[in-house]
């Protein structure tokens, strides 16, 4: 495999761009042109991927959920129903874009457009391959969090402008949820950043490559917290309370129809991909996979892992019921946040010991991984027991009576244990 470093080395498309920059420099193009050309090239590549992902993911998600739900899913348009997203898009474009009479017109129309911006911007810092980062920001992790928080404002815009009570409820829920989930997620990522010693996405991947391990092994608790927090940020079950179809119908986008709704729907899918990508890069080694990237292009590994995480999100959606809003808040504040803080402390101490005493990574990291795993198990189990609800103790299985038995008032509680036969199975 002596492809490395050639422009046609498909294992790392960044090489081609590097060659292009060299060629441009040889021609004597000014810096601005080189910057613009490479930037545009990367942006177009990402947009193409995002567009394809947004279209295909609706098919993937529907098919997978259908499998989970003992159905078949879309299978009529095209082979395996692959053209279903196209048909959906055509239908949505054709539909009339209704606008409620007393909606806040401009804000109402702007929201579905604006919501695209943070969704797509998030892709800029994802490390697709060794040299394939469009904007390798020093503060990549923080940048992602900042984008996540702006999405909520746009959701609020949509909900408020619709002039609909369900939409308003949904958007207020979204905001309340953001405030709650931002903190544990930041704390969880702080642990990762402490370990990696950088906030640069490519730096974090490089750290995992150098130490021959994924960060999920060092930070299992942070991974779980971030995964659960991202379901809240993505409005997916079990935390889809801002859409909550069975309660507030569709939440903030209840009044949107036609392609405006289509945009929200597409953004939902894109966001899921973006978050999966972030989890992949931060916890699962990004494009690096224990040497496998020597044979398989790094970006394919990345996309593979990304869809692995995405599958977990779909699986959540297919199986879990929804939290109530106060339960979701309590979960964030009383469960995730303390755990995240403890996790940051543990990570800091480990890193401090490592750096201060200049211990060898081969010694520290396995111990840290073991300690953190034990910590995660103990904390989750212990804290779960402390915070566990009272109903845990209550009997769940109905009592079985062979005869009717209704006592008169004052004759004691219905049914002594003698009358009730014990259930046959546990």
């Amino acid at each position, binding site marked *: 495999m002596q492809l490395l470093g050639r422009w046609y080395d498909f294992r790392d498309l960044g090489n081609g761009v590097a060659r292009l920059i060299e060629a441009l420099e040889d021609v004597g193009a000014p810096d601005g042109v080189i910057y613009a050309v490479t930037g545009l090239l990367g942006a177009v590549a990402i947009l193409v991927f995002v567009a394809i992902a947004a279209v295909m993911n609706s098919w993937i998600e529907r098919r997978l959920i259908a499998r989970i739900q003992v159905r078949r899913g879309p299978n009529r348009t095209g082979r395996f129903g692959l053209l279903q997203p196209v048909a959906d898009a055509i239908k949505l474009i054709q539909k009339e874009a209704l606008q409620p009479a007393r909606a806040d017109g401009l804000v109402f129309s702007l929201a579905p457009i604006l919501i695209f911006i943070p969704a797509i911007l998030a892709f800029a810092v994802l490390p697709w391959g060794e040299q394939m980062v469009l904007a390798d920001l020093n503060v990549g992790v923080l940048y992602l969090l900042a984008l996540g928080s702006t999405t909520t404002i746009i959701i609020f815009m949509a909900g408020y402008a619709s002039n609909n009570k369900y939409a308003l409820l949904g958007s207020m829920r979204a905001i309340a949820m953001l405030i709650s989930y931002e903190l544990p997620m930041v704390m969880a990522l702080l642990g990762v950043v402490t370990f990696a010693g950088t906030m640069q996405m490519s730096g974090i991947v490089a750290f995992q490559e150098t130490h021959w391990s994924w960060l999920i092994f060092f930070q299992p608790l942070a991974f779980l917290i971030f995964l659960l927090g991202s379901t809240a940020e993505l409005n997916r079950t079990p935390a889809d309370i801002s859409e909550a179809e069975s309660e507030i119908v569709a939440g903030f986008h209840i009044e949107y129809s036609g392609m405006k709704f289509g945009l929200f729907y597409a953004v939902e899918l894109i966001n899921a991909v973006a978050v999966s990508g972030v989890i992949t890069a931060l916890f699962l080694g990004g494009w690096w996979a224990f040497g496998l990237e020597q044979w398989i292009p790094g970006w394919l590994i990345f996309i593979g892992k990304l869809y692995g995480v995405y599958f977990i999100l779909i699986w959540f959606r297919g199986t879990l019921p929804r939290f109530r809003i106060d339960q979701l808040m309590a979960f964030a504040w009383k469960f995730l946040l303390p755990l995240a803080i403890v996790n940051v402390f543990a990570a800091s101490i480990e890193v401090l010991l490592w750096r201060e005493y200049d211990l060898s990574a081969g010694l520290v990291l396995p111990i840290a991984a073991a300690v953190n795993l034990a910590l995660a198990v103990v904390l989750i189990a212990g804290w779960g027991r402390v915070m566990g609800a009272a109903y845990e103790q209550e009997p769940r299985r109905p009592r079985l009576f062979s005869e*009717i038995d*209704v*006592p*008169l*008032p004052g*004759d004691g509680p219905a049914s002594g244990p003698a009358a009730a036969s014990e259930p046959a199975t546990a």
Partner: protein
Amino acid sequence: MPATAKLSGERLQERIDAAVPGAIEQAANAWVCVRPEQLVATMTFLRDDRELDGRYLNALSGVDRYDYFEIVYHVSSLSHNHEMTLKVRADHDEPEVPSVASVWRGAHLQEREVYDLLGVSFAGHPKLARIFLWDGFPGHPLRKDFMAMPGGRSPGLRAFPNEDEETWGGEFRGD
């Protein structure tokens, strides 16, 4: 296995008369008719009495009897597994009976239903409004004169088509 016993009207009258004298207007074999003035007192007694134990109101139905309206209460005791039928009559022109929603929460919606469909108003009901039909619907559909036709006739058939005495009971559905 015991089926639900039906308390006879005489037995009910005996029991109720002892507690609420003069409440019973008429006692038949299967039911008693209560005077409207003492309806709530009777029903409260019925509910709280340990022997009758009418804590469960099965159904509350209204019937248009042309001359008067009849509200029928099917009350039962889940503990003793018996059933009682009580009736109260209301005047046809200005039908009003006391509400028993204070005695049984379950009467609330059923009284609204009777009010809506028969036009019997229940004095003391916490929220007497139409339930199925919209406000301003003309008339009360379950009244027998709701679809009155010229000549005092009402729709529907009074006898089967081509029916005569010979075929009555003679034409069977075979299997």
